Every structure is written in C-alpha cells, then in structure tokens.
C-alpha cells in the first residue's frame, strides 16, 4: 500500500542520526519532526534564524517575533539560539547542517531538482531552496512518486526550471526509497509495504535500477516521539 504523507515523513525520520542539525522544508518534510526515533537527539534549524526550534506554542502563548521559515508561530527549545539571515545561510552553505529534507516537483536521474517555478503560473520565488540544495551534502527529497495527473516526478531530465544541479542523493516517495546513483539513475532501495516493483517502474520515467530482491520498508521499530 502506498504511503501517505505521514508515512513518507516517518520513513525519512529513520535516516536521522544522533547529533545532527536538520533543516526541514515546508509540507511533508515538516512532518518528519513528529517521528524522531527514540534515543536520537537532533536539532532543527529554520533558515529565518533559529536553531533549536520547538513545537507550536500553546494557544495564547504565540509570539509574533518567533516564527519558522513557513511563517508559522513556533517555540524555542532549551539551549536554542537566534541569529540573522546571513549567519543562518553561513550555517547552510558552510555545511554545518547535516541534513536537508525538502519537497520537489521533479527530480532527474542525475540528481537535478526542480521545485520553485512553473512557467506560465505565478512564481512565488525560491526562498532558501537554492541555497539549501546547492550547499548540503545530504539532501533527501520527500514527495509523491507521481503528480496528481499520474505523471512521474522521477524523470530523465527535469522539464521545469531547475532549483539545483546534481544535488539530490536520496528520494523517499509514497511508493519507494531511491538513491540517485553517481553515474545517473534511480536505484530502488526499498518498496512501500505491499507495493510491487512493477508499480514503481510504471511511474518512474527516469532510469530505474533494480538489483536483486528489493526489501519492503520497515516501520514500527522506532517509536513516535
């Protein structure tokens, strides 16, 4: 069965390692914070200027001066720190953030990503996405395998204007976990529970590399924090 958004987030959370600083994009990536595995401590960076971002505030305790990059009211954990936007992107460009999780409209088999602009539609801007994808060594894309029309989002070449070139290393979709191979191509690492390789192949336009038996994703070993 294909995963829902929470399932994608839960699978991505398995990639977290103790001591990592993590930047989560808007949408599915935000949900990753709900599934931090037991015994692991990570700190969330929001590029508008906080490290140690906590959960949403209790009603009535919101502070207009304390928001995340999605402009949502948030709280700060103990030991949090605030900083300016130049310092924030110094952290990002300087590779001090160990993991970036973000959404995408398209990913190519070379690791190119497009997630900011659809020609002919209103363009809102790239925000911090171009800095994030150009800088991070470790980028996981969280997205649906196909768009609403059923068209693959894992392509030979991106058709939309790019956000970054050759930067995506791992993709977690509702159907699969895939690594982008250095020589190009999507290596199928894991299938969503009950999803067949053929189903994944059918909605993967780019080169899908299947080697041996592809295991199913495992859930339930980690607990929800």
């Amino acid at each position, binding site marked *: 069965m294909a995963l829902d958004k929470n399932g994608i987030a839960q699978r991505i959370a398995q990639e977290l390692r103790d001591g990592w600083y993590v930047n989560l994009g808007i949408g599915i990536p935000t949900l990753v914070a709900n599934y931090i595995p037991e015994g692991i401590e990570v700190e969330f960076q929001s590029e508008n200027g906080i490290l140690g971002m906590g959960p949403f505030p209790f009603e009535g305790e919101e502070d207009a001066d304390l928001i995340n990059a999605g402009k949502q009211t948030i709280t700060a954990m103990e030991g949090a720190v605030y900083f300016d936007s130049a310092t924030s*992107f110094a952290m990002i460009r300087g590779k001090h953030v160990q993991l970036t999780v973000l959404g995408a409209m398209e990913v190519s088999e070379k690791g190119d990503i497009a997630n900011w602009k659809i020609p002919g539609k209103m363009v809102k801007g790239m925000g911090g*996405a171009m800095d994030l994808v150009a800088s991070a060594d470790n980028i996981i894309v969280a997205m649906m395998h196909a768009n609403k029309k059923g068209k693959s989002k894992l392509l030979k070449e991106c058709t939309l204007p*790019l956000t970054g070139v050759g930067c995506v290393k791992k993709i977690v979709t509702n159907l699969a976990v895939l690594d982008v191979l250095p020589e190009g191509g999507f290596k199928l690492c894991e299938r969503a529970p009950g999803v067949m390789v053929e189903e994944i192949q059918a909605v993967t336009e780019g080169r899908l590399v299947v080697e041996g038996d592809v295991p199913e994703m495992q859930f339930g070993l980690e607990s929800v924090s």
Partner: protein
Amino acid sequence: MNKVVANAAEACKGIQDGMTLMVGGFGLCGIPESSIAELVKLGVKDITCISNNAGVDDFGLGLLLQGKQIKKMISSYVGENDEFERQMLSGELQVELIPQGTLAERCRATGAGIPAFYTPAGFGTEVAEGKETREFSGKMHVLEKAFDPDFAIVKAWKGDTNGNLIFKATARNFNPMMAMAGKITIAEVEELVPAGHLDPNAIHTAGIFVQRIFQGEGYEKRIEQLTVRTKN
C-alpha cells in the same frame, strides 16, 4: 553620538521617487511598521524595494503595493499577496527573485565593502544566467555582487540613542545586514533607551551603521500563520 529623530516623518526625510530602499523583516516578522506607514503617507513612487518578502495584501509592504508605489521588488519569496500577483502579471511591477542566502549575503557584502563574492547557490539555474561562474575545490559557484541602496529601513526591539540595536528572536532576520548596507539607515525600535543602558556585549547592530533612530508607535505585529497546540 546622538542619532535620535522625533518620529517616522523625520526619519524618512529625503526618501524620494525612484530610490532604492532595503526594508528589513521576514514575512511580517520584524518589519518597520511605522516607517512603512510613513512611506504610504509620503506617497513616494517608483521605489525599488529590496526585501525578502512583499508583505500581505493589507499589511507590510503590501500597503506600498496597494498604492502602486513600488516599481520593482527584489526578494526571495513573494507569495501570500494577491495585489502583488496582479501587478506582476500585468507587467506593472518588475520582480527579481534571488536565493534567500544570496540575498542575505549580498546585503552583508554591501555594508562590509565586499563588492562581490562566490556562492554555490543557483549554479545551473536561471539565477546564474548572465553571471560569471567558476570552480573552487571541484564545485561550481556563481559570482554575486553587492547592492547599492539609498536607504535601509530596519526594525529592532530595543535601541539606544547612539543607534545601537538589539533584535528579538526571529525578528532579527535580515535587519542587521540591511542596517549595515544603507547609505542612510533608519532604525525604528519598540523601546528607545539612553546610551549606556544596553549591555555593550549584547548589542547586535553597532550604532555606527545607523544614521537615524526613533521609537515607533502602535506596533501591530501581525501574525501571518498562527499555529498553536491545545493543552491536552
């Protein structure tokens, strides 16, 4: 070194049609509300505005868009604004979109006397079109340049009469770099105190970067996305 002016009207003296203004804030967080209200009142036109976002329809820089005072926006993200979209699609408004980190670093470079620097952001995308690119340590980078704004307008939490500023939480965002970058920098603060009342160790922006400071009035501090938990 007293930098105090009476109010927003005094602070905004000299801002004219066609000028380039940097305006601090991220979304509606940490924006100079009093100065924006004054710019609406002044009715200055054809402004080029460097600001991370463009406000919402009826608040922040959206107020200047309503009055068609902005000729060009230089931002990283401009959603959440119908009037903006209308003016952009009709061609009334020019828009230049810049990666957020590049925007922040270009603001800092402007104030720091760094005319240009290399960043990996945007390489291989339309952002790099027409710009020099270059490899360092096996990775491609884009040459990005400083801005040349006439005024910078920032908002701080506390300030002293010398122009020293302290920002609160994530309302800091672009304000410190923009404060460095203005030929004339206007700082509005929620609380203005005499020089010597701020801890010199805890000041975020040194008064040397600020030419005019005043205590703003009636801060609304609107929340763009109210998200809360309920207790149990």
